[in-house]
């Protein structure tokens, strides 16, 4: 398939090269349309957010109040901290103008005059790349006052995070932009009602915004036919773990998971020809799948849902037959405990419990009843917190134990054998 988000064109990050290949044509087209027509086009395209929740982008935009009289904001989410996710960084490095063009179009459509691209603190180098691209776009009059002579003005800034996974959660992100600790806010009110500085705000992922120029250029009709109908478009998948060619690949949605893992143009198979024990398909919070159940599972929202998981951030982590899944889950539990902001008791305490219990499993110290206790604790976190970090911590535990119960029971049995000897 032709690549749209990450085209194989040398120096595409440079504004001149980007323009030579049709860059900023979508912006020129969009400003000839009425703002509502742009939103309608995005709605019709079927684009769904690439930040993890698959929310329809056009619908989200339509929640914003109309008119330009009061301040409104756009926050672009480049926190990219869900383990297994490394796709937005490719856009910052190889196609920053696509992102910027998408942001300007989004601001025009929603009548927004200031956008903040929130980028994780560790990406200092990539923030510089985006800043350079922004400066070039300002110099050409694509951003700033009276864009392309339309009378529409908007500013775009980068905002550097400082090491906190929770700041990827949209309301924590807004607190972080405002100079606060990254504590999620209670919803409602939703961001489109009360967001940054109390003003209506839309939050979208970096990759989501990078799809906008494509939709405007080629039309919603054309876009909606890429990949599967209910979750269309090009999507960036990150493949990591036990594959021969780890990396980020642009695909149309709906490619079989096994093709992505095994095909030489993608993951290239498992090193040493080993079999696949397990796959986490969409970043560490998504539910783990058994290797023998991957037949017929495709990389799109509905297919993964039917398989008992979700597309998340499309970060596929492959684990071969020798993988110690108890250790993997213990590491995931450590992550969520470390990253819990501490606001909600079930999350703060529960993630700590999970981590401690899993360390017991890891070190052959768990009791038989601890297997069910793990699930019990996870169930008490899920749904009982201000934000979805609690759920993100619970899902891996629930799914690992449900689908690989034998691995946990084996640990207990081996402990008994060690003790008996």
């Amino acid at each position, binding site marked *: 398939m032709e690549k749209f988000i990450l085209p194989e064109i040398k120096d595409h990050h440079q504004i001149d090269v980007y323009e030579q290949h049709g860059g900023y044509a979508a912006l020129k087209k969009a400003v000839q349309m009425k703002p509502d027509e742009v939103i309608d086009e995005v709605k019709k395209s079927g684009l769904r957010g690439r930040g993890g929740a698959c929310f329809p982008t056009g619908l989200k935009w339509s929640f914003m109040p109309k008119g330009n009289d009061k301040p409104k904001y756009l926050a672009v989410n480049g926190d990219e901290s869900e383990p*297994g996710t490394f796709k937005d960084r490719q856009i910052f490095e190889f196609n920053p103008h696509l992102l910027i063009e998408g942001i300007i179009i989004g601001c025009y459509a929603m009548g927004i005059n200031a956008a903040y691209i929130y980028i994780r603190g560790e990406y200092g180098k990539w923030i510089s790349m985006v800043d350079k691209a922004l400066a070039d776009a300002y110099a050409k009059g694509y951003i700033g006052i009276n864009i392309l002579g339309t009378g529409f003005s908007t500013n775009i800034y980068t905002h550097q995070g400082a090491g906190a996974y929770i700041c990827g959660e949209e309301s924590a992100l807004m607190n972080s932009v405002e100079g606060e600790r990254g504590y999620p806010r209670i919803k409602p009110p939703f961001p489109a009602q009360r967001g940054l500085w109390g003003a209506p705000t839309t939050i979208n992922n970096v990759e989501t915004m990078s799809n906008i120029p494509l939709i405007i250029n080629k039309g919603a009709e054309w876009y909606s036919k890429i990949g599967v109908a209910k979750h269309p478009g090009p999507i960036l998948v990150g493949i990591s773990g036990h594959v021969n060619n780890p990396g980020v690949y642009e695909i149309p949605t709906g490619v079989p998971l096994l093709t992505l893992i095994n095909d030489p143009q993608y993951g290239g198979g498992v090193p040493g020809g080993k079999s696949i024990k397990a796959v986490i398909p969409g970043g560490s919070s998504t539910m783990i799948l058994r290797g023998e159940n991957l037949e017929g599972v495709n990389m799109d929202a509905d297919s993964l849902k039917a398989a008992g998981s979700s597309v998340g951030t499309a970060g596929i982590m492959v684990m071969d037959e020798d993988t110690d899944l108890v250790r993997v889950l213990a590491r995931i539990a450590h992550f969520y405990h470390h990253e819990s902001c501490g606001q909600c008791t079930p999350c703060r305490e529960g993630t700590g419990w999970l981590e401690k219990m899993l360390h017991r499993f890891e070190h052959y110290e768990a009791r038989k009843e601890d297997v069910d206790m793990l699930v019990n604790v996870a169930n008490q976190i899920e749904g009982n917190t201000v934000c979805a970090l609690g759920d993100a911590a619970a899902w891996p535990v629930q799914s690992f134990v449900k689908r690989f119960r034998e691995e946990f029971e084996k640990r207990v049995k081996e402990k008994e054998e060690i003790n008996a000897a």
Partner: protein
Amino acid sequence: MLSQQNLEKAQALFTRYPEKKAALLPILWIAQGQEGWISQEMMKYVGDLVGVPYAHVLGVVTFYTMFNDKKLGKHHIEVCTNVACLLRGSDKILSAVEKACGTKLGSTSIDGKFTVSEVECMGACGGAPMLAIGQEYHEHLTSEKTEQLLASLK
């Protein structure tokens, strides 16, 4: 106690946001860039600049893992041990780092040259196992490459 040049940079940031407080994180980055860490005096100074109490700045600095309220070694070696890196051998990389730096995870070598930290997923899982030194990412590591890399640091 920002340098004149950094103070100007900091003040320019205020135009980006409708409220001064929003410039807190970016200004703390400037402060840390200048000093390598953020002292109590610096927190008070930045608080005055931004118009928030010291307690607020302290709360922010301690919330975000990348802000250092203590001095670090000359080189900060951050080893990712999250899932993708774990699967591809971050244990070995961590041992190689500890050995080469002469210090354990979470501490600074006696000569003050290295601080070794464990970090969460750095968004480089396709290049696992990896470590970062300052802003630089070093990916697709082996124990040998790690040793060479650390030996090359002055």
